[in-house]
């Protein structure tokens, strides 16, 4: 055989070899939606930073549950990351801004709670593998069927203590005005308590009400101002002095966001409601070093699922299928 022909054959074999090896490095059969986090040199400065153009958005479909059954929603989702942190950007249509969350309103004689809840979006990652979360998503921890071991005392938790989830919970009224998403985690449901726990540290919200629950206890402290959407932060409140006069129509926040500290305040948030929709950015260190947080290793993939709440409580939500987060 001619020497040149032999060389050509060897060359072709080497090319095929490389192609086959690359092909063997892919996971075959996976059909989940993948969110690719793009590596960026600098952190996004905000919701409109041009650096977001480096990430590809995916439209994540959501199915309505309970009172939203039969309805659908969609969230445009992007992610980028730096050497230190990961950033998510969510955009979804919502014709109504909902931040009431039972706010107090004075009618000239007495205080009463306004009707209305708040808009929210939540993400659930695995800290330790949750059995079948990768295939069933929230169905395995959020909406378990009646009679399942983790259906007791609420509907949110894992089956064993070894399974742990990291729940990122952005709340338009209770966390966003404080610039955070509530950082909580998920563990086993017991007979006595649910599986949802707050991360170590301080945060969450404080109920603004008197002991007899008939009226608000706090008002804006002198020299302080209301936060976004006229929400009163716990840190900016002061007990209502005796003799304070309110006029009809005055309103006061019922669930006052607290300043988040420690592991509970790991997830920073920025948001805007405009043009009939929300734009929300969440970001967190890749690895906080806290046991109640998922530690992101950019070489691996992560399963996560999302839920959307439109002026609704926990039981009424739009849920996504489980997705895969990949760091590119």
């Amino acid at each position, binding site marked *: *055989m*001619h*020497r040149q022909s*032999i060389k050509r054959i060897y060359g072709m*074999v080497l090319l*095929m*070899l490389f192609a*086959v*090896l*690359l*092909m*063997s*490095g*892919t*996971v*075959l*059969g*996976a*059909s*989940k939606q993948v969110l690719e986090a793009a590596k960026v040199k600098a952190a996004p400065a905000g919701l409109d930073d041009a650096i977001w153009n480096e990430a590809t958005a995916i439209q994540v479909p959501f199915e309505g549950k309970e009172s939203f059954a039969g309805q659908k929603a969609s969230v445009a989702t992007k992610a980028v990351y730096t050497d230190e942190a990961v950033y998510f950007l969510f955009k979804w249509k919502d014709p109504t801004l909902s931040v009431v969350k039972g706010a107090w309103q004075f009618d000239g004689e007495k205080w009463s709670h306004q009707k209305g809840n708040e808009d929210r979006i939540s993400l659930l990652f695995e800290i330790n*593998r949750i*059995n*079948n979360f*990768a*295939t*069933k998503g929230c169905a395995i921890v959020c909406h378990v069927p009646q009679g399942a071991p983790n259906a007791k005392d609420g509907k949110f938790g894992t089956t064993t203590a070894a399974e742990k989830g990291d729940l990122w919970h952005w709340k338009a009224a209770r966390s966003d005005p404080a610039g955070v998403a509530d950082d909580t985690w998920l563990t086993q449901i017991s007979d006595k308590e649910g599986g949802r726990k707050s991360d170590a540290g301080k945060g969450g919200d404080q109920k603004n009400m008197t002991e007899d629950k008939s009226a608000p206890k706090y008002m804006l402290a002198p020299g302080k101002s209301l936060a976004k959407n006229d929400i009163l932060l716990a840190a900016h409140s002061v007990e209502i002095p005796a003799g304070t006069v309110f006029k009809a129509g005055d309103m006061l926040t019922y669930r006052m966001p607290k300043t988040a500290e420690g592991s509970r305040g790991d997830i920073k948030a920025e948001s805007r409601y405009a043009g009939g929709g929300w734009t929300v950015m969440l970001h967190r260190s890749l690895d906080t070093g806290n046991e109640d947080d998922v530690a992101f*290793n950019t*070489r*691996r993939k992560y*399963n996560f699922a999302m839920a959307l709440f439109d002026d609704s409580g926990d039981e009424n939500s739009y849920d996504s299928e489980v997705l895969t987060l990949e760091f590119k």
Partner: protein
Amino acid sequence: MKPPEPITTTKDSRQRFRSDETKTLALNDPVAWLKRITVAGDACAWNRFVGGVLLALVVLLFLSGAFLAFYYSPVPGAAYDSVDFTLFSAPFGSILKGVHHYAWNLLLVLAIFHLARTFVAGAYRKPRQLTWISGVAILGLLPLFIITGDLLPWDQRGYWSTQVRMSIIASIPFAGDMAVRILQGGALTGIVALTRFYVLHILFLPCLLALLLAVHFYFVARHGFAERLNGKQAADHPIAFFPRVVNRWLVLFIVTVSLIALLTYYWPPPLGDPADPTDSTYVPKPEWWVLFLNQLVAIFKGKWAILGTAVIPGLLTLFLVGLPYLDRSPGNRPAQRKTVIVVAALLAAVMIVLSLMGYFEHFGLPRQ
């Protein structure tokens, strides 16, 4: 009871010990023995490096597999966690797992190439029939490593690929069901199946491979190399097995390790989602090496299924094994073996076409 006799040293043993002391290394005798071995000069020819790379890959797979076993737990669920830990938490775990993953694929590709080259050179013919048959047996053994190894991470791909393979095996008349029960230890793929696959993968199959390699090398050493592809005779001047051939193998080993380590650094080995036996929506896609067999199964259905699962693969195996005795051509050169070359080319073409059909069916047509 008679008391034990005290340990004493005889004059002869003391003299032998003093004689050993004069040697620089206890390995001197084996080294001298190795140095006396000579092989044909072509053993170090650069166009005959495939066999050396294959040996390097086998050693690499044994070593990487042994280190991976340190972390592995053959229990459903825990198996996935242990592989995940190896990949992302254990020091150099990702490299080890990647080397193990890519080395298998490389081994299979090169083994097929080695077989094809041997075929074209006519090196299966007398007196090298048993060299060829032992080589075919080695090639036939490699998929068993992959089949048993695929299940070990207990991920979706491995689990559901195993289900497909078990259903194909079970469809073989008479022996299929029994083979599946023996492999799985029951009707379902659970902890017993995982344990059996693990033991097969790390113990029985490696022992069998080592035995076949020894047989293969024995026949290679006994009958020498075949003619070169360019028609010239293999170099007949003998060279020392040690250090020349051993050094060549070491060079190939280092180069192979380096290249695969680089590959795995940039393209980490895959690990899918944990296996969920209740997730019937998962459709595993066949790997590159099994595409043509998978397509045979897809073509022949119902009462003809046995053609795709057993008859055609069996005939192909018989053809390969019996080739040295079927080929009655007058000489070894390809031009003197036109009938065999044409038949083999047709078979290869059919396999490639079936593989392409399988690829397009499972992965879609290339984008315009």
